[in-house]
């Protein structure tokens, strides 16, 4: 990936500097701030999901539902969802800026990233907020333990 273009800047032209919000600067700062927070969130997430107990083999609806019923994990997951997607989306935007030279391709790719990020954030948020850990009619053995208790 490091030997891509031999003679760029042809012809030499830098886009005039736009006014308004400086995405580059805030994007840059955001990457760092979110990065620090994400470390905690993601490492915590991975630890709980993969390391505690039987790790990945223990993952199932019951496990997830159990976590999502807890407001603590709900906040955790929501924050992680937003931070990570925007972080990743902004990172991908950087890549597109770097490697997609044609204006049109650039536009399309960035729109695609934006679309994916927005859709997934909305979807994810909805899931977390509207999630019902004990959906009616589901086989009880798949549900978290507390569903039976109530």
């Amino acid at each position, binding site marked *: 990936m490091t030997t891509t273009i031999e003679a760029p800047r042809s012809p*030499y032209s*830098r*886009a005039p500097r*736009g006014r308004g919000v400086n995405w*580059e*600067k805030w994007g840059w*700062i955001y990457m760092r701030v979110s990065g620090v927070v994400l470390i905690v969130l993601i490492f915590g997430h991975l630890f709980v999901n993969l390391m505690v107990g039987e790790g990945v083999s223990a993952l199932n609806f019951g496990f997830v539902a159990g976590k999502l019923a807890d407001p603590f994990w709900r906040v955790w997951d929501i924050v992680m969802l937003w931070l990570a997607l925007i972080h990743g989306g902004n990172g991908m935007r950087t890549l597109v800026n770097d490697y997609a030279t044609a204006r049109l391709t650039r536009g399309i790719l960035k729109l695609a990233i934006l679309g994916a990020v927005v859709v997934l954030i909305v979807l994810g948020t909805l899931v977390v907020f509207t999630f019902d850990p004990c959906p009616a009619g589901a086989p009880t053995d798949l549900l978290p333990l507390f569903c039976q208790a109530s």
Partner: protein
Amino acid sequence: MSTATIDQPAAPEAIESFTVTLIIRRFDPEVDDEPRWQDFDVEMFPTDRILDALHKIKWEQDGSLSFRRSCAHGVCGSDAMRINGRNRLACKTLIKDLDVTKPVYVEAIKGLPLEKDLIVDMEPFFESFKEVQPFLMASSKPADGKERIQTVAQRARFDDTTKCILCAACTSSCPVFWTDGQYFGPAAIVNAHRFIFDSRDENAAVRLDILNDKEGVWRCRTTFNCTEACPRGIQVTQAIAEVKQAIMRGKP
């Protein structure tokens, strides 16, 4: 009294010469569609420089080999090129510091339009340099017609970046610059840094604004290729980081 001869290199007794193979990436715009690699064997001493090898080729084998050079000791910035895959000045790269059991690859710096052999078009590079307003801007002149006062510490603040010789080794080693060449590039930022942190200058804000741009400092991904490549040992990445800080603070 006879005139002294100072023909011998200074190093001690009978240093042996050996054959070095240079593989040079040639491109003659009037003939070639694409660059091509060409081998040359030259007899060299360990204390010779790559520039000497190129001269030897040009002067004894193929006069059409084209490259820029002037001072021959690393102060004019003419001969940045890629030697064994890294940007260096040919006049500061000693044969003995390379592994000459293998051929030495020499090619033009990357990211600027190739003109001929080892020569690239430097205009885009100098355009970026000019864009950062690389000159002192200070409205007041000292009343007594004397120098402006600057303390030793204030002078030291920007010492590192005054050393730049505009050789482009840094900018053309930067992976971000290679991608589309729109990035201002480390050299321009280094030269902006030189003035942003000069206590006598009053226009830091303007330069910070220029570099607070889509193609400005934020494109730097701290890959350190620039710092590694700089023949003047300038801490380029550090300088860029300082400019980023200054932009965030809003002042130097």
